[in-house]
């Protein structure tokens, strides 16, 4: 189900909100969990059990880490166990067929491909799980004692399509105490409408323009037409992603939760460095905080720094394919800038 669909706007959302506002406080998370499951079921129902298993895994490992706080070895074991399982599932969905076809290609075997569709949310779910378990390990957040609340966090549906990535520390209080008010409802709804407009009125239409230009002959293209193409494409991916983020932030606000901002006028950036900080902010900071800096960032000498940059480059590249599967071309553009950006930033410093 997408936010711009009739089913979502006129059936799913009104029913869900009605129930959500009517039930007593302690049941609100339950309404969110159930509606998230219905939301995912519309895309790929088979992913739900996996999601549940992952949630149990994260929750259990988080508590184990808390229990063995003094025992460094055990603590580390549970961290890697959870990270490993999460990554394994992500890579299974993303690369199983790729690996099978490679094996077939090399050995001449004929193992049938699995043709598993990539369920929506699998990447973002992984990002959220990893940020939780790593933060618990580092001690920056307390581990969640209630599985009910943790499940609410890990299944939150508004941001699952395109972000923003919600870290546990952003919402841990609101999982228990939601700030529901008429003001928040109105602000959230306005934000949602703005996002919907960005997506449907702007992104889809400039996207159609880009499609027309893109399918034409590149050789015969005039300079002006090329520029119109580039501009329409740039506008399409911006309004698409930021529209989705606005809708997610708006929905969260209606539910009484606050998500982080994800875009901050990226196209006014004066440098590629600045662009990196203004474009899909939560994704960039996720990679910075959980991959680049832990690996040593730029503080362990140039060879390691280049290695770190390359790792992030490879990861953003491969991850991005799944996050932005609905805009594959956008990804290339986006990765190109991300990659350039990191290399660039680091080399001018």
């Amino acid at each position, binding site marked *: 189900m997408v936010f711009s*669909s*009739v*089913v979502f706007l*006129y*059936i799913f959302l*009104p029913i869900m909100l009605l129930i959500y506002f009517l039930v007593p406080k302690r049941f609100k998370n339950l309404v969110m969990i159930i509606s998230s499951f219905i939301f995912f*079921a*519309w*895309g*790929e*129902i*088979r992913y739900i059990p996996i999601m549940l298993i992952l949630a149990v895994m994260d929750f259990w490992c988080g508590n184990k880490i808390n229990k063995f706080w003094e025992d460094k070895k055990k603590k580390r074991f549970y961290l890697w166990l959870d990270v490993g399982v999460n990554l394994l599932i992500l890579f299974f969905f993303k690369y199983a067929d790729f690996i099978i076809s490679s094996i077939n290609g090399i050995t001449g075997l004929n193992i049938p491909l699995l043709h598993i569709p990539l369920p929506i949310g699998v990447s973002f779910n992984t990002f959220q799980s990893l940020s939780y378990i790593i933060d618990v390990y580092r001690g920056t957040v307390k581990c969640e004692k209630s599985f009910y609340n943790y499940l609410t966090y890990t299944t939150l549906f508004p941001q699952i399509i395109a972000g923003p990535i919600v870290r546990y520390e952003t919402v841990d209080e609101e999982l228990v105490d939601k700030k529901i008010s*008429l*003001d928040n*409802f*109105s*602000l959230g*709804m*306005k934000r949602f409408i703005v996002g919907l407009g960005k997506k449907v009125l702007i992104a889809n*239409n400039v996207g*159609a323009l880009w499609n027309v230009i893109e399918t*034409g002959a590149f050789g015969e293209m005039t300079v002006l037409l090329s520029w119109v193409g580039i501009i329409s494409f740039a506008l399409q991916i911006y309004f698409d992603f930021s529209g989705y983020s606005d809708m997610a932030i708006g929905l969260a606000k209606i539910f009484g939760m606050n998500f982080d901002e994800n875009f901050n006028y990226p196209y006014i950036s004066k440098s590629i460095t600045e662009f990196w900080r203004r474009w899909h902010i939560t994704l960039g900071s996720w990679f910075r905080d959980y991959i680049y800096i832990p690996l040593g960032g730029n503080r362990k000498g140039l060879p390691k720094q280049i290695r770190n940059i390359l790792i992030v480059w490879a990861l953003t590249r491969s991850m991005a394919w799944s996050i932005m599967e609905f805009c594959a071309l956008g990804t290339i553009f986006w990765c190109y800038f991300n990659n350039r950006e990191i290399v660039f930033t680091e080399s001018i410093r």
Partner: protein
Amino acid sequence: MKNKIFFAIFMTIWILIIILNFIWPKQVFSEEENRMLATIPRFSFASFVSGEYLNGVNDYINDHFAFRDIYLKLNSWWEVKVMGKKENNDVYIGDEGYLFEKFEYGEEEKQNIEENVASISQFAQVMQEQKIPTYFVLVPNSIYVNRDKLPKNVEVPSQKEIIRTVYQNTENTKNIEVTSALEQENRQKPVYFKTDHHMNSDGAYVVYNTFCTTANLQAVPIQDFTKVTVSNEFLGTFDSKAQLINQVPDELFVYENETNTNIEEAIYDRETTDSIFNAEYLEGKDKYSYFLNGNNSRAIIKTKVNNGRKLLVIKDSYAHIMAQFLCENYEEVHFLDPRYTNFNYAEYVQENGITDVLFLYNVSNFLTDTNVTKIMK
């Protein structure tokens, strides 16, 4: 305060639309779009897991949205008039008011052709053994014959080539090439409707004329008919699909003479009349059903021609408009549509004393229709 006002206005509009959707009359058939609308899917565990059920719910809600027709028109107005697109909902908007449906010729179609050709060859062999000639006519579509009127940069595969290949591979039939004749006539006057996927009566005459030459029949000259316009308000299937506003309607006309207006009887699925035309359909949207009473599994026309010849036409709807000419030369003309029948056609031929068989299909349908194979079962 501002938030309160927003809340009040927003909620009013939102709830109003939700209620309207809920109470909106649920149509079964859309006259405008000429198609059955989605029904509430039946729930089963299997269909739920496969996603079929929820997709069905999606379709149902989309098909019964309040003011749906107005939205469709608005959308096409935006796409075509404002954005200047030359296509809406897979229909190209060509020059001179012509609309065309996209024509695709890929692997799936090639596969289907093979199966259809095999069935026809097999059937024709059975006919040959009984000394009954089998004629085969593949009629090209408007998008090919009128390809000079397509929007810029839209290419259409050569249907002439496709027809030639099909003819080469079909055995035991007498194949009739009508494309060149249609193209030639089309330079003088339109042989297709502009808003519908069928040929008009001028096109039908060309096909009839060419058919007569091969079948050794005396074609009735066009001057011996009176051209009668039965409607000037015909907006066909392409128009329904594209949902355009201000589309100029087509003229619906027939060629009448003593023989085709004065037949013995016409037996259709649900009724028996004394005409190959049905004026009731001129009132509704689906005016092409004026010819041969629309889609019937079987239509038998008994004429006052006394020559003992009985023609079986195995066909799609392109043959309906041919009825007015075919009944000039046969005592009986039987039309069978494999899409709606489920019996062995060879037996039918024997039981009804058929003397000639004609396969008549349009290319686009022949490529996709999977029912042709049923005739040998």
